[in-house]
């Protein structure tokens, strides 16, 4: 995309370029073909074309990652179930901070001050993938959580492949929407 801001085009809210994950971008592309220009309550609208702009996508992924990490902790704790779940959620929240703090400081030392969110993102996803691989091999119920995580990564990879094949169509559909 060559544009970063779209003015007074409400349909641009659901552009694939405003989504981060391939699966979500592909779904946005499918929806884009079916949508007409929606009614807009705002008198004037400026929309930023930014991959992290869609709240529903980000909140869903954040909740899913939290639930996944909390399940891994809960199953590893020796407490009764309700306590394990509570402690699992608390530990998961703290664990999510580890790559941010650890990775952030390390990257700052290695490559200097700046925006390291993409590298921390890749590191966090890798850690979750490794943890999911480990728990998927266990015999407890948490293996389903692990397989779900791995499965979603595979589906997202396939969606990325589709998006790459459809890249010209996606670009022209987006341009039609905003011009």
């Amino acid at each position, binding site marked *: 995309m060559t544009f970063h801001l779209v003015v007074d085009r409400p349909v641009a809210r659901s552009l694939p370029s405003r989504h981060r994950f391939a699966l979500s971008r592909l779904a946005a592309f499918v929806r884009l073909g079916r949508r007409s220009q929606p009614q807009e309550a705002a*008198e004037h609208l400026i929309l930023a074309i930014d991959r992290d702009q869609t709240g529903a996508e*980000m909140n869903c992924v954040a909740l899913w990652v*939290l639930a996944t990490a909390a399940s891994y902790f809960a199953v590893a704790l020796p407490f009764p179930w309700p306590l394990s779940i509570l402690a699992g959620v608390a530990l998961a*929240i703290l664990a*999510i901070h580890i790559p941010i703090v650890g990775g952030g400081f390390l990257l700052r030392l290695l490559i200097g001050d700046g925006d390291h969110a993409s590298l921390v993102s890749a590191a966090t996803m890798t850690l979750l993938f490794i943890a999911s691989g480990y728990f998927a091999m266990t015999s407890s119920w948490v293996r389903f959580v692990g397989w779900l995580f791995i499965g979603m990564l595979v589906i997202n990879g396939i969606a990325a492949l589709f998006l790459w094949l459809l890249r010209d169509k996606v670009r022209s559909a987006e341009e039609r929407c905003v011009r």
Partner: protein
Amino acid sequence: MTRSAWWRRFLVRGVVWRQLLRFGVLNTPSWTEPTVIAFWSLFFLLWGPGRRGVMRNLAVIKPRSNALGNFVRCYRVFWNYAWTIADNVRFKELRTIPDWEFSGWDHFQQLQAGDGAILLTAHMGSYDLGAQLFSETSTRRIVMVRAPEADPETRQFEEHHGTGGVHVEFNTRPAELAFDLLDNVRSGDIVAIQGDRVSGPISVLPAMMFGRATSVPAGPFALAMAARVPIYPVFVVRLGRRRYRLMTSRPIEITRTADREADFARAVAQWMAELERVVADCWFQWFTFEPYWPEKAA
């Protein structure tokens, strides 16, 4: 560095929290951001004076509320505050622009087209982000008046990490500042002032909000009268993830008569009506962490 100076960095207005926020913005993946912000909003609840201030204000805004309900509402205020300050730092550091919706677009255009104006706003949403939006979309210079950071290190940090698009004047020397601002308005600049709460030894005007007596800074009203320019109430409200609404209301015209007090009282009443309407609708974004009404503070 002395022991006391070292500790000061960790106080509520200390520099450590600003550094931590910047670090978080630069290193947090967007898809873990909601979890991280939810956690840190909980952490804010440990700030006793701020929590109590918000809860006392909520008790006035929502008279039928109870303490437990207001505690939960207080979390919502902190949650919105955390997102707002994060969006503000993200804009400063990475130039990430949120979505903007405008209401009162005619008034906004009128504000941009006029010969100097005063933009009166409140501690709501991201007023810093709103001022930046103005500075980037307008041909007019924006002069923002604000209280300086109490902590010298925090002040230095903010100066170093500012965007530079907005000219900031600090209200430390009221007499000289008044003349400077008058010059600014007369030369066509837009002077942005927060008109909801009084901080520091500045002159005030009596006001009523939610049926209770309070006071507002007299400066914007005196400046509007002296420069003969309108006051535009402008509010920036957060609607969701990286999504804001800029609301511009009907301008307040201060007509000069023989009775100055009555002129001011009319203008203040119009401003308070706007402020009350917006705060009633968007109480979860009114970032006033001290008790707003003197009787409640007592």
